[in-house]
């Protein structure tokens, strides 16, 4: 696992998470210790309109855990369908922000998301959660 890849639909939110929340929670040293990176579409040169199936395939092939907001129809090439027909145990899970709107205004909720993202980064890096297609954050 290389780290987390922020989807276009949470790119702005992730910046806040990465620049403000995670440092405030004091978890950056842990993530740095694991050598995990955070990247955006821009960093990897991924087209902003890549379809779900291609994105998931690329993420798995390159070892990125996709962090996204899943608010789209379940078409044949949707993320939901791709996870259904292509995911196998051992693949990296997809992290899905459960409530982006709440993340935007609820400080406690945002902190919970940040804590869970940090925890999941850590756990996935050590081989956990490879039996899950998708994990919603916050997790509980």
């Amino acid at each position, binding site marked *: 696992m290389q780290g987390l890849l922020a989807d276009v639909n949470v*790119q*702005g939110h992730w910046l806040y998470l990465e620049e403000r929340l995670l440092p405030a929670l004091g978890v950056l040293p842990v993530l740095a*210790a694991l050598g995990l990176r955070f990247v955006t579409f821009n960093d990897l040169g991924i087209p*902003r309109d890549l379809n779900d199936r291609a994105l998931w395939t690329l993420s798995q092939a390159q070892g990125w855990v996709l962090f996204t907001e899943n608010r789209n129809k379940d078409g044949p090439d949707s993320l939901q369908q791709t996870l259904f027909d292509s995911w196998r145990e051992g693949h990296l899970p997809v992290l899905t922000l459960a409530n982006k709107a709440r993340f935007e205004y609820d400080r406690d909720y945002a902190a919970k998301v940040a804590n869970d993202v940090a925890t999941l980064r850590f756990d996935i890096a*050590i081989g956990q959660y490879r039996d899950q297609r998708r994990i*919603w954050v916050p*997790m509980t």
Partner: protein
Amino acid sequence: MGIADNPSWVQALDDGIAAMRQAHADRGWYDSHDLINWLNEHSNMVLNEIIDSYRFRRDGTPAHDPILTATRQIAKFLQHHRHQVQLRKHISQRNAIQTVPPRAKGNAVVAVWQISSVAATGNVDGLPNGSSVSNEPDEPRMPAGMIHDRGRGPEIRGTRITVYNLLPQLLDPTATEDFICQVNRLTPEQVAAARAYILNNPDTVLSQHLRIEERMAAGNSPQVREKARESRATFLRFKEWLSNREKEVHQTPQATAIEDGGGNRSGSFPTFREWLAEQKSRPEERS
């Protein structure tokens, strides 16, 4: 002062939009001249007030064509304040307007506006609660160009952002246009196109939105929730161990040697394998 700032002008335009929807529902569109012609006939005073307001430029010099300027400003109002979807532009005829001085009829290139199921009067800035026109098509209407559907639902062309991504923000009264643009890396035109799509296809969008909400409400399985608690505990142990380890390293002369010239102390951190090995050697601490 713009058109949107004058309640009587807004009221007249809303009445005109509603009349356009009724009069031209069969063909599915109206153009700016249709609306101007209607205003000329039914709200002539307002039309003249609007035209008069554009007789002079900001620097005080006379405007070249105040009627054309007024037509364009009305088009902007339709697009930005009433979220009318522009299909294309075409040449059409404007009737003679009773202005001072009188203005003969003429042709000009004007915007063609889509007629949809959204009620044109009343609360068109929020989700519509008005009645639908009788010829609503089965297929959702797509604003020309900016919105397409690749199977993920209506999506802003060139991005992975669907109207469902934006809907919660568009429904949030505290989310300004700037905020939505900035956080989603979108232009105002792209956000306007998404808003127009939602307003033009409220039933389709809301039913899919509810399905998405339902899927999200299900959340994680009980197993994942239980595992999350364990994960958190493990993570916190690692964090604490790392913190203690760092303090120890800093207390030794060798520690400073690990730091590079830029103050980067990443080399002083243990690898996960080191940490794991230490944890295994002290199993009682993990229970």
